[in-house]
């Protein structure tokens, strides 16, 4: 057809977005679908200039909002701890986070989170996916979504890196319908991927020679063939080599002792410090996970032990991001799949509580020094307008320059909104 109708432009523009990401975003484990040719240069430039990054701190199992962001001291459900004033007048947080209390002016807090799922197994993916409306497809986790929508930064580093305790690997299931390649490159205990270091048996000269030969053979092969397979295959070697150039990221010996002490030598401190360095190196989306927050028993001793470590490492991280001016382009989010019940159970624990919990964030156009929403005096429900995770996804996408009301994924021929279509961004949270 020679004449386009206006609505086809709308269509193709969305296709372009998908195509771009497919062509360039192929995540740490994988290759590109190679539709880059469809891309309009202007769109490419626009997205190439987008240097926004995201750092997600995930407190798996559910941190207690009452022992952190939304304390209710001296109330029936308040628990044993005191609250302390912060640098934001009138705003108090738990005594377990004195350092973050001093950083409060640099943070935005939502105390009116009300989400749906009180189960870990289904709750974690729901929150991670922004719990969009059910359209019969498996949505990507936040990191995979960003890997697809924004691709790697100019650094060429894999766009979605997950620093976690335990094993590493390539976690493709996070990608949902986007396809395996948008999964997470997981660095188990912050350790580099297997085989990152070139063995002594290969000199750097020999490596250069063989890589040049590989490229030469590939160029020859790709000539007058469809390019997507070769692009994908070449891309993973490029990423591997880019990662190798950053091998110092994984060398803890290179860390400044002062940094190590500021962040803490525990897992969360070490992983948060690595996250800062990954962000500095140009990884688009970094997730740091801390496990074990499911404090059904002895919640208060658990938080007494855990919270100071969160306080230490996250406050150090925020301090560094602001000192380096990275807050202008790095969105930081601290959250879990839900909070914990006000009711204190018979094991002196708190159970799962999606009904009224808190999320903290900063950077990248988030209005700092803001507290959005409030809970009832005894913490048993949201008092103000409740926000679901979909609202947060709209807000965060907006912060990094994605119009979540317009942008869509394509799943085959099925267009899909990137965040819940009944929800919207929270303007109060944005500059």
């Amino acid at each position, binding site marked *: 057809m020679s004449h386009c109708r206006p609505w086809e432009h709308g269509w193709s523009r969305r296709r372009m977005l998908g195509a771009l990401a497919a062509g360039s975003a192929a995540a740490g484990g994988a290759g590109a679908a190679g539709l880059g040719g469809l891309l309009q240069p202007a769109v490419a430039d626009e997205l190439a200039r987008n240097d926004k990054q995201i750092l997600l701190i995930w407190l798996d199992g559910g941190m207690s909002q009452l022992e952190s962001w939304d304390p209710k001291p001296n109330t029936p459900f308040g628990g044993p701890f005191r609250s302390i004033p912060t640098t934001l007048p009138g705003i108090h947080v738990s005594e377990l986070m004195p350092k973050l209390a001093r950083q409060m002016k640099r943070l935005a807090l939502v105390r009116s989170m009300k989400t749906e799922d009180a189960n870990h197994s289904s709750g974690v993916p729901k929150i991670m996916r922004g719990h969009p409306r059910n359209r019969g497809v498996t949505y990507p986790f936040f990191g995979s979504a960003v890997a697809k929508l924004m691709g790697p930064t100019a650094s060429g580093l894999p766009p979605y890196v997950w620093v976690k305790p335990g094993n590493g690997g390539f976690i493709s299931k996070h990608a949902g319908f986007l396809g395996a390649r948008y999964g997470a490159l997981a660095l188990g205990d912050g350790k580099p991927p297997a085989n990152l270091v070139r063995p002594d048996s290969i000199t750097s000269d020999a490596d250069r020679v063989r890589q040049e030969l590989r490229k030469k053979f590939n160029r020859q092969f790709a000539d007058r063939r469809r390019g997507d397979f070769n692009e994908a295959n070449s891309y993973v070697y490029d990423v591997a080599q880019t990662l190798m150039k950053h091998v110092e990221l994984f060398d803890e010996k290179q860390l400044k002792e002062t940094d190590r002490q500021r962040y803490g030598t525990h897992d969360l401190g070490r992983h948060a410090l690595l996250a800062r360095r990954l962000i500095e190196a140009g990884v688009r989306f970094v997730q740091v996970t801390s496990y074990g927050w499911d404090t059904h028993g002895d919640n208060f001793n658990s938080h007494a032990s855990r919270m100071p470590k969160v306080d230490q490492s996250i406050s150090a991280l925020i301090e560094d991001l602001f000192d380096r001016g990275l807050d202008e382009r790095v969105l930081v989010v601290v959250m879990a799949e839900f909070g914990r019940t006000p009711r204190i159970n018979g094991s002196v624990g708190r159970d*799962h509580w999606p009904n009224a919990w808190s999320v903290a964030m900063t950077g990248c156009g988030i209005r700092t020094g803001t507290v959005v929403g409030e809970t009832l005096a005894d913490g048993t429900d949201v008092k103000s307008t409740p926000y679901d995770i979909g609202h947060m996804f709209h807000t965060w996408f907006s912060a990094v320059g994605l119009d979540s009301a317009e942008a869509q994924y394509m799943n085959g021929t099925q267009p899909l909104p990137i965040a819940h279509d009944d929800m919207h961004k929270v303007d109060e949270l944005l500059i």
Partner: protein
Amino acid sequence: MADAPKPTEKKPPEPRELFKLDCDRQLMVARFTACGRMLVAGGYDASIRRWDLCAEQTVEVDRVEGHHGWVSWLEVQPGGDLVFSADTWGRLQATRGIAGTPEIAWHHEQAHDGWIRSLSVSDDGQALVTAGRDGVIRVWSAVDGKLLHQLKDHPADVFAVAIHPEKKVIVTGDLFGVLRRFELPGGKCVSETSLAGMHFYKRIQDVGGLRLLRFHDRGRTLICAGGEPQATGRAIAVPTIHWLDWPGLKIRHTARLGAKNHGFVFDLAWHPGGYWAVVTSGQPGSGQFLLLKPGQEKPFFNTTKMSNCHSLAVHGDGRIVVTASNRNSQGNGAVRDKRGNYVANFSPLHVFAPPGSEEKPAAG
């Protein structure tokens, strides 16, 4: 020996539950006053709760206010009229006349910076020692609340403290399962002993297992109780008691009172009937109340019917009270009652007649 006939052993007598008291809030600790007239308890509502045992029917009487957060510990003065209570916001309080018209004898609003985890009164009732999350240990004159000694710079969160009957030594147990001995008056740390197993670290959480220290047998035995933790997040442990020789600190006897998925010994008391009465925490339904003869590894009585247990006290007449947690005390999401109210938990107090007693059960 499998085929050998089992000796017909007479089942040892068991305690019988006499009645149950209701408390509308959750309790951490309960004690009988020295005079035996009153049961006093502290818990999540920042007050001291009182039950008059001499009334025709046991009734709860006015609370003693003044605390904040949780009343975390409470002890009565041996041979005296004072009740000492501590809370999680750092207040230490001595209450006089608790069995009648209570009056605050003295208090320190900031005896500690935050959670006072443990409080111990000397056998002569003249000194008390407190310790808490701030890592400071303080010795107070029981009569007027004057600070006698303070031991700063304890390297960690102190969970348990006890003062030796001769008042020349204090022992502490910390989050890491380390037992320390300090000499008074100088406050010098003279020994450190790590109780292997009474600490667990995983996923940025230290779980402390050394929760209770008690001198016994006129200071010739030190009891270290708590548990050998197995996981984070769910507070599960093998409930454990060590009996140590004093002053040699050699473990003389150990009782492990449950499986890996139980909890911690939260309280214990010597019963004049010649056995230990012990309560352990656990997952609801696995908390135990048990009676254990000295030198034995297995209790001669054990019940888990109270869902979960937090404290116990032995009355002068041998009766034992156990503070428990209500059943169905756990649940994700907004658990509501039939009227739609968001419900809090509470702590029933179960009163037991000691084993072998002839007393008939009576209504509470």
